[in-house]
């Protein structure tokens, strides 16, 4: 089974967010790095200028020993802050990483320096910003030369402090990301869940349906994404409903068709039992017999039809000679034709009318058509079976000069149990339905026509010689 949409979305969205956020953080840090460097460099420059301002009146005679001492002791942030036990230990720690400075006079003598500054020049004396390696550390140095007082100011900061700052930023970003992550996941989970609620509702609606409820699902309440699915589902429902309806109608019709002859049998038998004369009893018994024959015919046709369900396919098709089958049928039904004084004629080419199919079915098809023709044609009429072989097809025509079927009823005669009103002949009403199903099994085309003599009925069936090629 495909994993749930919710899990899929959750995992993929989280992965995408992680990727994008990481890229954003990296990009951000890269830009921040530049910004930080610029800011810190600016600070170095500013500090250099301020120091220059402080010493603008320095003449070289004033001793700076007191200032130096204070710098080393009283004003040393490391010393001062350690003593005061300040609570903001982090800020205090940061304060220790102050800028270092050196002030050199024209003789190359260090006249003033911050407590932790090295005693050797921080730079080579070239003014401006530079980065250099000194005492095992990398330094960023701003060197300012005061020509008026002949003093050189060097303001420096250790690069690893800068690095620390950046690392801190990175850590903070990652920390925030990690903290917000569960919230993000939770939100995605909830939002996707809410989005999928409609899906669940449709599923619930379908789940709670009674098997007989095949009404379409209301498309109004369905999100547009799953509308195609629901539409397909609805069309399936409709097809199912039609099939159910067809089956239900068939069962009802079959029950009707079986019960009416049974009722006739029972009634005629009761009449026979009450008959007052032997003649009357015989007459009723003959009617009972006719009823039994009719019921048998209906049952046989029903069984045939049930074997020819529309879903069936031809198992093990063989070469069937339509001419031969028609010959067999004609021989079988000839006595009935003779009894009604009907001229039964067979026109069949020898050996050219082979098709791929099922011999029994073809026999049933031809028998039903010829039987119908004989049944419905008046006494002294004609019934013609005409078989024509073409290149890829074989045509079967069964032509009679009986009453025919009006054009507007030609579609309906294939319906099960449909019988034309007003004919006194007792058929099962299933014959043409069976013919149609067998024709469909063989991918044959069936059509009802008026013969060129313009009376009667012509049933034309065109069989492909190989139904696999259709």
């Amino acid at each position, binding site marked *: 089974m495909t994993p749930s949409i919710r899990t899929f979305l959750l995992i993929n969205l989280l992965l995408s967010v992680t990727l994008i956020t990481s890229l954003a953080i990296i990009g951000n840090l890269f830009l921040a790095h530049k910004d930080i460097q610029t800011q810190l460099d600016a600070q170095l420059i500013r500090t250099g200028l301020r120091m220059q301002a402080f010493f603008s009146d320095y003449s070289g005679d004033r001793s700076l020993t007191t200032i130096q001492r204070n710098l080393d002791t009283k004003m040393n942030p490391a010393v001062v802050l350690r003593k005061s036990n300040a609570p903001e230990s982090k800020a205090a720690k940061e304060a220790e990483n102050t800028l270092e400075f050196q002030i050199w006079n024209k003789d190359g003598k260090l006249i003033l320096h911050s407590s932790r500054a090295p005693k050797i020049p921080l730079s080579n004396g070239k003014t401006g910003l530079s980065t250099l390696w000194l005492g095992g550390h990398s330094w960023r140095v701003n060197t300012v030369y005061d020509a008026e007082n002949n003093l050189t100011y060097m303001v420096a900061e250790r690069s690893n402090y800068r690095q620390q700052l950046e690392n801190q930023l990175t850590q903070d970003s990652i920390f925030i990301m990690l903290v917000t992550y569960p919230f993000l996941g939770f939100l995605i989970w909830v939002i996707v869940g809410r989005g999928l609620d409609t899906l669940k509702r449709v599923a619930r609606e379908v789940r709670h349906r009674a098997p007989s409820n095949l009404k379409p699902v209301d498309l109004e309440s369905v999100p547009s994404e799953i509308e195609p699915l629901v539409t397909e589902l609805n069309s399936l429902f409709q097809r199912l409903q039609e099939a159910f309806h067809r089956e239900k109608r068939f069962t009802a019709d079959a029950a009707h*068709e079986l*019960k009416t002859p049974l009722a006739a049998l*029972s009634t*005629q038998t*009761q009449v026979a039992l009450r008959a007052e004369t032997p003649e009357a009893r015989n007459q009723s018994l003959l009617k009972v017999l006719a*009823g039994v024959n009719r019921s048998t015919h209906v049952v046989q046709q029903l069984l045939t039809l049930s074997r020819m369900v529309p879903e069936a396919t031809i198992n093990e098709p063989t070469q069937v000679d339509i001419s031969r089958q028609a010959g067999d049928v004609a021989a079988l039904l000839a006595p009935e034709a003779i009894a009604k004084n009907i001229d039964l004629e067979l026109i069949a080419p020898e050996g050219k009318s082979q098709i791929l199919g099922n011999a029994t079915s073809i026999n049933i098809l031809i028998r039903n058509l010829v039987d119908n023709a004989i049944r419905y044609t008046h006494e002294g009429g004609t019934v013609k079976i005409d078989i024509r072989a073409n290149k890829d097809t074989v045509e079967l025509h069964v032509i009679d000069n009986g009453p025919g079927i009006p054009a507007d009823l030609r579609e309906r005669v294939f319906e099960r149990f449909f019988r034309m009103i*007003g004919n006194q002949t007792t058929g099962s009403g299933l014959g043409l339905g069976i013919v149609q199903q067998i024709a469909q099994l063989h991918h044959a085309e069936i059509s009802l026509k008026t013969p060129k003599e313009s009376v009667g009925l012509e049933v034309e069936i065109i069989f492909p010689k190989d139904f696999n090629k259709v």
Partner: protein
Amino acid sequence: MRVLLVEDDELLGDGIRTGLRHYGHTIDWVKDGKAANDVLATTYENFDIIVLDLGLPKMSGLEVLKGLRERNISTPVVILTARETVDDRVKGLDAGADDYITKPFDLDELCARMRALQRRSKSRAKPIITYANITLDPASHVVHMDEEQVMISRREFALLQKLIENAGRVISREQLNQTLYGWGENIDSNALEVHIHNLRKRFGTELIRTIRGVGYMAEKPPEAE
């Protein structure tokens, strides 16, 4: 009783017609819904009961029944059909049927139900019809007068029942003839007079009054409840 049978199946219709004749009923048989509707739309055909199939050509039995009830005709209707679902029964009864019998059925039961409907339509409680000192049993076609059995023919029984059940009302010759003969049967123009004569001979001349030019009438019995 004069029965209209509406049934499209030849063999079954023939069986019911022959069977009901044995019970002394007069049967008229139509084979499609439209014919039934046409017959029932005319005013001069009077039926005591209608036996109606539902699956009929041209017009369904239910439509025939609805049309009948819409025209405000209350003739009892028995539906005789192969449709046996509860839904079908309910539909049939709601459309105005008085009884519903499914195929296959027993002829005796059909007749008993027809008698019951006839009894109800005449608002009788007892299955035996009593008129002064005369009693009629529609089930066995036996007539008693003063506790003594009187032998009369089936047609005379039908005639007597028709007159007694409508005591106090004039029944036209046409209606009485319809009670005796189905369509297509040869009606002897004197037959009705002959039957009336026979009934008067057995039960007394004052039982049936002749209304000249109109028909016959049984007087309302003085002690009728």
